[in-house]
């Protein structure tokens, strides 16, 4: 359980990460703001409390890994990795500029701390299965975390992977769905509904929990429970708000990839 002091620290850290991310996107003037904001809490909880990692040795063989399958939320992960010391924070202002080490979607070869290249939606969970199978062969007990988008869950490959992780009993995979109810073109129930999402994962043989994805204590507890699951892979469906923390963007159907001038970004940061 999270004690009060840790909870306060992590709450503050999530605020910092949110601010760094808004700053990076605003400095560029455009970016995947909505889906970056909805994963701030889960990334904070993973990188500052749960993952066994070493920023000085990003490819340590027995590290815990994260596959950010919704690779367009890269900016939030870059903020976390910069803050953890994988690379200088100055890099955040190079986001998406020609020659940058921080591209729009995650790239394992460009950015220290990125475990898997993602961006073509639907492939991340499959890659995580490969990593988990390799670790099982090598007797490595580390966890493979995966974050899948809700819109991404329209992709058939996600469900191919859902079957396989269950068949192979990959209990070291702990996946999250960032269920912010919005996909690029609008609200999911109007574009391509994925309900009943929880039942879908249950019926694929996963250990499924459903939580408020902005509540750090709930995320913490869900990860703890998932870590103790002896047989099944875990899916933590997180109810989230796309654009969370940026009042004019929250739950707006146009917030997937939006313009954000730097002045507005700084004002949004001041309000956090």
């Amino acid at each position, binding site marked *: 359980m999270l004690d009060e002091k840790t909870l306060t620290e992590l709450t503050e850290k999530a605020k910092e990460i949110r601010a760094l991310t808004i700053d990076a996107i605003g400095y560029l003037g455009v970016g995947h703001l909505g889906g970056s904001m909805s994963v701030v809490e889960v990334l904070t909880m993973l990188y500052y409390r749960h993952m066994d990692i070493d920023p000085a040795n990003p490819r340590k*063989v027995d590290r815990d890994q994260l*596959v950010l399958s919704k690779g367009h939320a890269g900016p939030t992960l870059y903020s976390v990795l910069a803050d953890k010391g994988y690379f200088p924070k100055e890099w955040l202002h190079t986001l998406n500029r020609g020659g940058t080490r921080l591209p729009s979607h995650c*790239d*394992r*070869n460009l950015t220290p701390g990125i*475990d*898997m*290249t993602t*961006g*073509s939606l639907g*492939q991340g969970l*499959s*890659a*995580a*299965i*490969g*990593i*988990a*199978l*390799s*670790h*099982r*062969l*090598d007797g490595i007990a580390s966890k493979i975390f995966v974050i899948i988008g809700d819109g991404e869950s329209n992709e*058939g*490959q996600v469900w*191919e*992977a859902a*079957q*396989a992780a269950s*068949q*192979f009993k990959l209990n070291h995979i702990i996946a999250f769905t960032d269920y912010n109810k919005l996909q690029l073109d609008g609200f999911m129930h109007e574009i391509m509904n994925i309900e009943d999402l929880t039942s879908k994962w249950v019926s694929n043989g996963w250990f499924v929990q459903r939580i408020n994805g902005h509540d750090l204590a709930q995320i913490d507890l869900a990860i703890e429970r998932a870590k103790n699951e002896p047989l099944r892979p875990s899916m933590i469906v997180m109810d989230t708000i796309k654009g969370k923390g940026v009042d004019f963007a929250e739950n707006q159907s146009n917030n997937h990839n939006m313009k954000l001038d730097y002045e507005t970004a700084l004002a949004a940061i001041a309000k956090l």
Partner: protein
Amino acid sequence: MSKPLEMRAVYTETLLQLGQMDERIVLLEADLMRATGSKNFKDEFPHRTFNVGVAEANMVSISAGLSSAGKLPFANTFACFAARRTFDQFFISANYARLNVKLVGSDPGVTAALNGGTHMAFEDMGIMRTIPKLVIFEPSDPISLKKLMHACVEYYGCTYMRLHRSFADVLYDETDDFELGKGKVLRQGKDVALIATGVVMVGEALKAAEILAEKGISATVVDMHTIKPIDRDLVIQLAETCGAIVTCENHQIVNGLGSAVAEVLVEEIPTPMARVGVKDLFGEVGTLDYLKERFGLTAAVIVEHAEQVLEKKKSH
């Protein structure tokens, strides 16, 4: 010449040997294990064998994950699924991510025979050839299969191997050396060079060279097992020595071997050439012999093209 050998048996035996020497090697299948015949690998290495069911896209991205964690995955399926169905997974998860996935597409082109048009990959090399850095090859006999598999394991990077699954004549000796990206001259001639790839067309090219010899035409025959990267030096040398070229492939003439050779010739040494291959047609069902006739993949067609090219050479 020793008796023909079943290529899939050579493939699986070689994979088993490689697996015994290199514990990074793992095998992935998508419910075609009975077709591949890879049971021997599974029997020896049950924990290193993963059958993902009928889910080729998933198989390729899982392979990428295995590679990112240091394994050396061989992923098997039919050539049609390898190229058409898993293209984005192979492109992004494996190649773009600079990983080390060995994708194997069996039953290329007319060898899909009784599985018919849906399963007939005449375009796989063409699709794959657009992927940066990817190495694409098709062994032409049991010995080159074994040796090129060893070469592909030693090479770090994604490869796509077209695998003829049924019987093939032995064309080489155990002492022959093979290198990815370096074609093999099987027969030396001076009038025309027949550049072929794969079991079916290397065989037909050798037959065509015999027929041409009877007509007083001396043909070089090259086994261009690797179509990417193409052996530029060899193509230029063939153009210089023969001055006429015919490419022979069990594939569309678009973006396969013929295109690769033509690109070198046009840029380096314009030379009369013709392409034997499938001319903008979908596959069909039938026996191998029927389909070879149907799609013009025979020694007779190669001879015809060689004679036409020799006419052009006169006025070149």
